[in-house]
């Protein structure tokens, strides 16, 4: 890039003032509360919207200029990657399953984030946050689009990605990320900003994008690396917005502090539970690993989050209470998640496998306190069974947590061989939870979470079969019908990597790429 830097007539601060605040006006023939109906009901008190500061001081004209530059770079690289059969340069075909998880689990969230920030921005009477939300809303739709464009090249060659949005709205485990964002989107505008802008973007997003995208680069996936870094360049701005939102709300009125603290506690835990998918992606799905989930958690949450909450202590904000439990889970999270997906590989849109000896060695070195003792013996047993032709696929539907919607596979904090169950009676029903934190979230807002669309309940109620299915006929196979409802093909999109078409095709095509046959 050789950017022309024009001599500016105004300094950055003045430009920002003129191009944001200067564009706002006070309505004369409509009441403020009619124009901004959602701004008061959450109990957040704002006295002076002009105290809002955008530390980047980015104005719309500069925004378009730099975003255009990012797009030009991105699409040039995607073209080059596709034209050179870049997909054959990834470390091995197992890696592509991480991409499948990304397109069906994460990319649809980018689109929902686009809608969320458009909605939140519209709800705020202050021009500063409105402009910042507008930019973020446009960023998020850009992320959804660039991810679809980059990953569409993989969809030409590999299975499981053909109907990712349909899958996102239906497949059992994808209700975890989907319900997370739907939960945020249906909250008020301030809670949405704390949930997504602060807790997700500022506190947790580094864990999603930085190690994973750096991992994609390490595994030869130029497409993912490029859209990832392009998206991440916007994330830096989003994180700044998230921190600014928090500081702004807290400085406006001391009565805001307990409300914000409750939202931080809730959304840090909600976000962390969603990142379970990322934990297993890092520890199991990248053939070449950059860092373990545990290491990433220590750098980006414990160290960085520690500094952040120390900084926010002056407002009376404390580290979310769930941090203690998360610290106890970091030795177990990815292993428990991967074991679950290994078992449910018949009902997923990607393949799973058992780590090989070298990978087990790596896992043991990264998780010295847990891997050899608890997880290696389990994997060894499953490997032996698979070698004997008994690769196990669980066809029994699991009990789900009412809040995070993850199967109840997590263990008691500090007791890694005992499954954690919590329950609450509400009205005439019993509700189940994976943890004290999800239970607490339910107890604070039971009216909201009793409405959860839980995939397992829906399957049992007969709502996840193709129209016209008769479950009473002889030999009815519920899993087969559910897969049809998901638009997944049994034996092609699911099951173990070892027997997959992806594995066979990748080996054949890579052979063709290096020899004349």
């Amino acid at each position, binding site marked *: 890039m050789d950017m022309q830097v024009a001599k500016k007539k105004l300094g950055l601060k003045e430009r920002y003032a003129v191009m944001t605040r200067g564009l706002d006006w006070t309505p004369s023939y409509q009441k403020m509360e009619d124009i901004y109906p959602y701004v008061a009901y959450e109990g957040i008190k704002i006295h002076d919207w002009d105290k809002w500061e955008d530390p980047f001081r980015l104005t719309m004209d500069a925004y378009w200029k730099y975003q255009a530059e990012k797009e030009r770079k991105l699409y040039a690289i995607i073209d080059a990657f596709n034209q050179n059969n870049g997909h054959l340069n990834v470390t091995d075909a197992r890696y592509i399953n991480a991409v499948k998880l990304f397109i069906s689990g994460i990319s649809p969230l980018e689109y929902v984030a686009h809608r969320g920030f458009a909605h939140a921005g519209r709800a705020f009477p202050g021009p500063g946050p409105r402009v910042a939300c507008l930019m973020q809303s446009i960023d998020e739709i850009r992320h959804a689009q660039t991810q679809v464009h980059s990953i569409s090249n993989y969809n030409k060659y590999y299975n499981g990605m053909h109907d990712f949005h349909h899958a996102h709205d239906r497949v059992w485990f994808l209700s975890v990320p989907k319900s997370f964002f739907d939960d945020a989107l249906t909250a008020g505008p301030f809670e949405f900003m704390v949930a997504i802008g602060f807790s997700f973007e500022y506190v947790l997003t580094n864990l999603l994008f930085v190690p994973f995208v750096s991992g994609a680069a390490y595994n030869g996936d130029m497409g993912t690396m490029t859209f990832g870094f392009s998206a991440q360049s916007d994330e830096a701005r989003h*994180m700044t917005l998230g921190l600014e939102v928090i500081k702004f709300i807290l400085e406006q009125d001391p009565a805001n502090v307990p409300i914000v603290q409750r939202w931080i506690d809730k959304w840090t835990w909600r976000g962390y539970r969603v990142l379970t998918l990322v934990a297993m992606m890092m520890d199991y799905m990248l053939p070449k690993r950059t860092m373990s989930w545990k290491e990433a958690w220590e750098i980006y949450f414990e160290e960085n989050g520690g500094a952040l909450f120390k900084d926010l202590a002056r407002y009376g904000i404390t580290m979310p209470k769930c941090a203690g439990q998360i610290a106890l889970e970091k030795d177990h999270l990815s292993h428990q998640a991967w074991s679950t997906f290994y078992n449910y590989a018949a009902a997923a849109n990607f393949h799973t496998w058992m780590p090989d000896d070298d990978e087990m060695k790596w896992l043991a070195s990264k998780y010295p306190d847990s891997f050899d003792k608890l997880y290696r013996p389990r994997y060894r047993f499953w490997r032996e069974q698979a070698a004997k032709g008994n690769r196990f696929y669980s066809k029994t539907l699991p009990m789900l947590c009412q809040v995070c919607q993850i199967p109840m596979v997590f263990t008691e904090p500090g007791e890694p061989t005992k499954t954690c169950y919590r329950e609450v009676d509400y009205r005439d029903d019993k509700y189940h939870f994976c943890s004290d934190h999800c239970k607490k979230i339910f107890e604070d807002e039971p009216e909201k979470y009793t409405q959860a669309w839980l995939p397992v309940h829906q399957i049992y109620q007969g709502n996840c079969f193709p129209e016209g299915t008769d479950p009473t006929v002889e030999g009815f196979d519920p899993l087969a019908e559910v897969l049809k409802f998901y638009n997944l093909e049994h034996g092609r999109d699911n099951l173990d990597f070892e027997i997959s078409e992806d594995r066979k095709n990748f080996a054949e095509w890579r052979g063709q790429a290096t020899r004349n046959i």
Partner: protein
Amino acid sequence: MSTVFIALQTNEETRQVIEAIVQDNPDAVVNEQPAMVKIDAQDRLVIRRETIEELIGRPFDLQELQVNLITMTGNLDQTDDEMVLYWNA
């Protein structure tokens, strides 16, 4: 003491920016990771336009950094002349 950091893509545009950051923050630690460079500093990190301009030999707008930015942490204050990341505590 708390760590602030900024991470940039590894490429020809950021090479001199990183050099400038190291010049202006002698105690900063540069971590090279696959395809990215993460720079850590204690409590405060400053990026100065003039230092970058001296190294690249052309006028530079600090907002250009956005194109190659991956992530950062700390409170931010940006003007035409410098971009500062800091923790208060």
